[in-house]
């Protein structure tokens, strides 16, 4: 990652957003802990102590981020390409949704093809069957030999 270049003109947006997110997280933890139905305790230290402490810690970090955002100013960062990331995220979502209905091999094969696509390797009509084939081999090794519980679908039941 390139060295951040300080420019004039307002706070660092990223640090500001992260600071706000940390603040929200602190508030959520605080609110969730408040809502806990705590019964009478022997010691004053119960299951709520650590969340409260952590909530406070996160709040301090949130303030720290906001302060750093204003102190350092806008930082220049390399722009990341969004399309390849969407391919990977899409592949993971597809695998998540298809794991149960279609089984491990087809779902993971799709993920494999999407990930290869994210790095510029295609075409999908070639990589999808390749991925499914490889995943089936992996399924046979891990589910068949090592007895790992990987969901089976139509393809797996065809073979096994």
């Amino acid at each position, binding site marked *: 990652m390139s060295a951040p270049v300080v420019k004039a003109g307002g706070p660092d947006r990223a640090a500001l957003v992260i600071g706000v997110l940390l603040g929200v997280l602190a508030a959520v933890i605080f609110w969730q802990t408040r809502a806990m139905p705590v019964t009478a305790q022997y010691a004053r230290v119960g299951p709520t102590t650590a969340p409260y402490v*952590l909530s406070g810690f996160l709040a301090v970090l949130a303030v720290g981020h906001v302060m750093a955002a204003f102190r350092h100013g806008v930082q220049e960062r390399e722009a990341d390409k969004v399309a390849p990331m969407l391919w*990977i995220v899409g592949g993971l979502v597809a695998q998540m949704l298809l794991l149960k209905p279609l089984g491990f091999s087809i779902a993971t094969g799709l993920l494999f093809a999407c990930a290869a*696509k994210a790095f510029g390797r295609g075409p999908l009509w070639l990589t999808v069957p390749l991925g499914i084939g490889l995943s089936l081999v992996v399924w046979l090794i891990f589910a068949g030999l090592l007895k790992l519980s990987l969901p089976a679908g139509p393809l797996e039941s065809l073979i096994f």
Partner: protein
Amino acid sequence: MDTFALLAHGLAGALQPINLLYALIGVTLGTAVGVLPGIGPALTVALLLPVTYQFDPTASLIMFAGIYYGGMYGGSTTSILLNTPGESASIVTALEGNKMARKGRGGPALATAAIGSFVAGLIATIGLAFISPWMVKFALSLGPADYFALMVLAFVTVSAAFGDSALRGLTALAIGLTLGLVGIDLQTGQARLTFGMPDLLDGIEVTTLAVALFAVGEALKVAAQPMAEDKIEPVKGSVWMNAQDWARSWKAWLRGTAIGFPIGAMPAGGAEIGTFLSYSTEKALTKHPEEFGHGAIEGVAGPEAANNASAAGTLVPLLTLGLPTSATAAIMLAGFQQFGLQPGPLLFANNATLVWSLIASLLVANLMLLVLNLPLVGLWVRLLAIPKPWLYAGILAFATLGTIGANPSPFELGMLLAFGLLGYGLRRYDYPIAPVVVGLILGPLAEQQLRRALAISQGDPSVLVHSPVAIILYLIAATALLLPAYLRLRGKGKVLSQLAAEED
């Protein structure tokens, strides 16, 4: 029994064929993942946790330790030939090693890295064997408040001390600690931060978090960056070192070991700092200062030895105190827990055979690694030629395989995706990853010790600073937190980050 007898006993265990086989699998896998950019030993052990669930604990842990050691060897190969460190502890190796490779001296660079790693691994493992019983005695004298102080120290050193920003390191730690809170509180049965979702009652799986942060996050980050073709330097000439190489290397190996092992053994976090210190030591002591920056062999020999010595050193707090100070150690702790074992002084009493077999097997693994990495180095170099699309597609497929194997539910994969995006965000904005993993695993343990201490004192918080040990530990923690900040204020904090960044 004295240490020698215990070690000999352990060696008998380690030399059993089944354990030898697992050590071999471990070191081979470890070297492979060390060589491959993008995956490291922490991820590999995390992926293997669900697979080894039904295996013999001793054999599995021997394999995990082999992966850890192997990763340290393999990382140097990538640094030297590709100038892309395979794992963070090899950053310094790339400085001089890659220059040597470009001058056609890649062979001796690989050799001094491998032999240096062997020497350091050997000395440090023996150090581990001799220090551990002593540390166990010390650990037995500690109360819950001392343990809590020790964990606070580990938190601080892992997250704040040696990163380039304490704010970012502590933020990563806080995220890990928050994730550690999720689930049922073990002492009262109270559900915390589960938002009514039954899938969260068991807490967040270490496997899922580690795999997501390391594999998914890394894949997203690499995919998002403009693709640069890496140039692999071919290994020209002999891999053997000449007399002058030996003469210049052996002192550097020993100095690197002497620097790396104590840093790993004290809960000081990470193997990187030892490599930086060793590099600057060699630079200061060398008789050939003009070669530094252009391929000085000492600059490879010292840091590589320091790297492996601190990897072995990290096992001291892990085994004797149950205190992980690196991401890999944290995952290994999860590996122990998976088999119902809790590292710490009692492990040495209750599972002595396992512990000493594990330590002895490290000696065996180290010898295997020397063979794997010297004559067979050409084989590993070929791994570097795997095109990125196939490499990362494969990494993602195996990453999800590990998660599905641990818990075959779409919910778990959803968490994998969510934490993967978190991992991407952390990388994008230069937040360290290791504190998140250490926070998730060590956080609940620290809370347990804190509550135990306060239960004994009936809620009086001053118990936390009653023992001299605890006070000293807090003072060290405060120093670790404030000293880098002070140095940074005086403009000296740049030294560390510059070392990594000044390469072209």
